[in-house]
């Protein structure tokens, strides 16, 4: 029933909303992609508007926001970074939105595909599990003799944390032993404490794994203070601006970087296509849609970033879809989109 032609009855533009799971620089980059898409796809001309809505990192927050969306009349499409794949309530709210005629896609973090596939139209992003596997692969090649690692994360219960950690475990293989999975409750000072405690608590520890974006600077800060760079392999998720500087300074061995800019951009593109029933774009983005597993996923790709010099890692070690970049190239890529981090 929702056709673009009926927009004129209301003064304001109809909205596409990208609802995050929590707050991090990751979403600032996604916002940049979203705004770029709004420009390039000329949303305003078609009476649309794309906005990012930041959740507070709790399931309750996401449920409340989805409910709030359902009660508003100007929302055409919602892209959700699902806070917890197994959460029935979130999936229910997404279904409820769909029943109200709002298009729903997932971005960055998907629902449990076995249980709630029909809660959304498609998923745009990268599997965090796959990302974890690539990071584990990097660790395996950086340290062929194996090692003992600790993962650092904001909340151990968060969906992407669970997936990344278990992906890392799979990618790293048998020679690696997990010592701890430490949560800092989003407190960056505690993130540093956790690293310090891990280092003093575990003698055999030699791999430090940053799971959420701010864990990377936290790891590097502590290792730098303790002056023990040579004792640890440091591999991290995401590229916060400070983390990029840290890799320049030689303190990070490998970063697995998702593409939040692309998630924001493609998310808007898909939402616009859905809103306008633009079959061509949908077909282009999801060529195998409806044809079994994976057809409803738009992969925004992964990047593995390594330092410019002296890295034993090379492109062949990683998956075919994964982009392998030296730090210099990565920075060029960022500069191209005017980004500080990813």
């Amino acid at each position, binding site marked *: 029933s929702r056709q673009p032609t009926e927009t004129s009855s209301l003064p304001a533009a109809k909205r596409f909303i990208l609802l995050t799971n929590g707050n991090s620089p990751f979403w600032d980059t996604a916002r940049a992609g979203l705004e770029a898409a709004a420009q390039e796809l000329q949303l305003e001309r078609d009476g649309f508007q794309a906005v990012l809505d930041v959740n507070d990192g709790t399931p309750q927050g996401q*449920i409340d926001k989805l409910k709030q969306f359902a009660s508003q009349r100007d929302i055409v499409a919602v892209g959700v970074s699902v806070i917890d794949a197994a959460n029935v309530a979130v999936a229910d709210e997404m279904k409820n939105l769909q029943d109200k005629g709002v298009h729903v896609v997932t971005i960055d973090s998907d629902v449990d595909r076995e249980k709630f596939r029909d809660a959304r139209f498609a998923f745009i992003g990268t599997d965090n599990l796959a990302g974890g596997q690539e990071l584990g692969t990097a660790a395996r090649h950086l340290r062929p003799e194996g090692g003992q690692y600790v993962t650092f994360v904001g909340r151990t219960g968060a969906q992407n944390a669970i997936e990344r950690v278990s992906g890392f475990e799979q990618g790293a293989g048998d020679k690696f032993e997990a010592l701890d999975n430490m949560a800092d409750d989003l407190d960056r000072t505690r993130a540093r404490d956790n690293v310090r405690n891990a280092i003093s608590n575990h003698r055999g520890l030699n791999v430090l794994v940053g799971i959420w974006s701010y864990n990377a600077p936290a790891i590097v800060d502590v290792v730098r203070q303790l002056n023990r760079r040579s004792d640890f392999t440091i591999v991290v998720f995401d590229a916060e601006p400070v983390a990029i500087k840290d890799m320049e300074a030689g303190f990070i061995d490998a970063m697995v970087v998702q593409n939040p800019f692309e998630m924001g951009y493609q998310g808007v593109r898909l939402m616009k296509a859905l809103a306008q029933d633009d079959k061509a774009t949908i077909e282009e983005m999801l060529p195998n849609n409806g044809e079994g597993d994976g057809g409803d996923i738009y992969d925004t790709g992964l990047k593995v970033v390594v330092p410019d010099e002296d890295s034993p890692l090379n492109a062949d070690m990683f998956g075919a879809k994964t982009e392998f970049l030296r730090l210099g190239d990565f920075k060029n890529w960022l500069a191209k989109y005017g980004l500080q981090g990813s």
Partner: protein
Amino acid sequence: MSPMRPKAFPLGWLARSEAGLGLAVVAVVLLTLLFDQQRTYYYSPELSALDVLRHTSMLGIFALGAAIVIISGGIDLSAGSVIAFSGTICATLMVFLAPEAMQKAEPLGAGVTILAVGGTLVVGFLIGSLHAWLITVIGLPPFIATLATLVGLRSLARAVIENVTLHTFGARTTQIQIFDQQFRSLTTSVWLRAALFLTLAVAAWVLLSRTVVGRHLYALGGNEEATRLSGIRTDRLKWLAYALSAMLSSIAGIFYIGEQSVADPQTLARGYELNAIAAAVVGGCSLRGGIGTIPGTVLGCLFLRVVIDGIAKIIKTGADVYEGLIVGIVVVMAVALNQLRETSGRRKRFFEGPLGAVTVINLALLLGVLTTLVASPTSGQVAVLVGLACLALVKLFEAARARRAGS
């Protein structure tokens, strides 16, 4: 008998305070209608009303507890953690009672649910009793006793959940998923929670205003020593107040895990204790004790909720950034108005001396920042100057009036 004399009849005053709050609610709804470009309240009134109701009844349930404790002269900082702990316990009991069903996402059956809910209420009662014991027997100030459980219970809940999942499912997880459809549909039903809230509010209202125990609670809050010396067992009253508060939070905890379909103590109901206290205080409860009503508290919850909902409707995206700010301002305003009404008749100087001068700058800057946020940096700068000028004038005027009165 001069007109400036405050009305003698206390219920008159209360009525006035509640009427004011009621009017404020209506005003906020009208303002939202006016400034919301989508006119959501007009086009989908039922949906909006249900949405407000959903939140108001949930906040209301544990705000009732906060109000009872505050009226009896105490303070309960632990609501958020008690909610999280109770939710965890409820899920844990379900796991104990039906481990298979919980793991395989099968229905639990009414028996299990009822037992789990009942057990949770017992735990709520035990928490309230612990507070009462720490306060009346050990002699801790209520602030400290409930601060300790605020910090401690959430952590205990996390430890419990990790332990239970490890021992029952063989894998340590930080949350327990709740699939049971029956439980979920009951806890997400707006009607059920609204009905429950209404029942509890009416019960609390009758308790406080129509029973002997209620009168004693007011007496306790108004003058603890005099209450004891009137032969009233203040320790038992405190036990009642804290037990009720904790049990109401437990009820909220049960609803929250159903609504979220997960018991996640790390994130559940963080900081909600402040919302509950704010609602009670906005509703006219005095932290000095002995003053406040249940209808006032209910209106306080409703008011806070329509304000938050209004902001969300008007600002649309990113409204939650402003939520805290506006709640803070609303709380200050509401309590300040109550305060100034009490001392009305007296002419007050708001900007006296150096503190007044600093406050002039302070408020002008605040005005400037707010204007910048709402409009633009340029208008913010204008606002600072205008604010500075106006407030300085007020200050000068006050000083002149004081000089005239003094001479």
